């Protein structure tokens, strides 16, 4: 497939991204670069200096809401990518209302409890939508441990082991690897039946 063919398919697709931290901001930028037509992003948090070791934000954006900061970054990369930004803490109801019509959803939360809540919501209410999760990305090195596990249309990227701790922080290289595995899986799913 040529880049023009790829772009013409992706320009009609909508990808949901739940969370705009390390996974969400990096996955969103990759997807905007390749020409996804619409991204629906959501996060209630603001950009903090401590985020810049892995998240796709700039010093001058500190204090801004992440969802709007990311929307602006993407407008500077690919203005044709429509970004619908929601300053909201996602729960069962808002996940179902925001993401009912996306082609694929990326889970990009920080806390395991939120990941589990989103997964349960998707299984119960939107099980037809492919869900791409991140689980196990803290620390550095150990590339070979990072993998994709699939459970029907639920895909889990990461090493499945390393939990974020004070002495095992999330850092740009591994976080971006997992974020881009998620973005790469989106392309695989969206381009699969379009040849």
């Amino acid at each position, binding site marked *: 497939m040529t880049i023009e063919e790829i772009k013409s398919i992706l320009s009609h697709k909508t990808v949901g991204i739940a969370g705009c931290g390390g996974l969400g901001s990096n996955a969103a930028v990759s997807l905007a670069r390749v020409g996804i037509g619409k991204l629906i992003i959501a996060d209630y948090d603001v950009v903090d200096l401590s985020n810049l070791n892995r998240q796709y934000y700039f010093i001058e954006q500190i204090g801004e809401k992440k969802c709007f900061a990311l929307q602006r970054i993407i407008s500077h990369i690919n203005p044709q990518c429509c970004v619908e930004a929601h300053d909201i803490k996602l729960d069962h109801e808002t996940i179902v209302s925001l993401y009912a019509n996306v082609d694929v959803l990326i889970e990009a939360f920080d806390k395991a409890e939120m990941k*589990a809540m989103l997964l349960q919501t998707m299984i119960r209410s939107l099980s037809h939508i492919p869900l791409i999760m991140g689980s196990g990305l803290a620390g550095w090195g150990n590339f070979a441990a990072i993998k994709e596990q699939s459970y029907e249309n639920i895909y889990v990227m990461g090493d499945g082991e390393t939990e974020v701790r004070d002495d095992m922080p999330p850092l740009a290289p591994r976080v971006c690897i997992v974020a881009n595995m998620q973005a790469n899986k989106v392309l695989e799913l969206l381009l699969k039946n379009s040849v």
Partner: protein
Amino acid sequence: MKLIINNNPEIIDAETLTVAELLTLKHFTFKMIVVKINGKPIDKNEYATTFLKEGDNVQAIHLISGG
């Protein structure tokens, strides 16, 4: 009992087996696990009272903080 656990066929040496017993047996001890049986999610408070049947497709998805 023959089960499919995380996409792998396995034989568990037990006549009866609850979800809670299976998780212990498999050392699935992560704080956050979402369990699906034959595509249906099982609530945490039902692990001890949900019995598995021959041929059940069990998926235990581990979720770890960080993102």
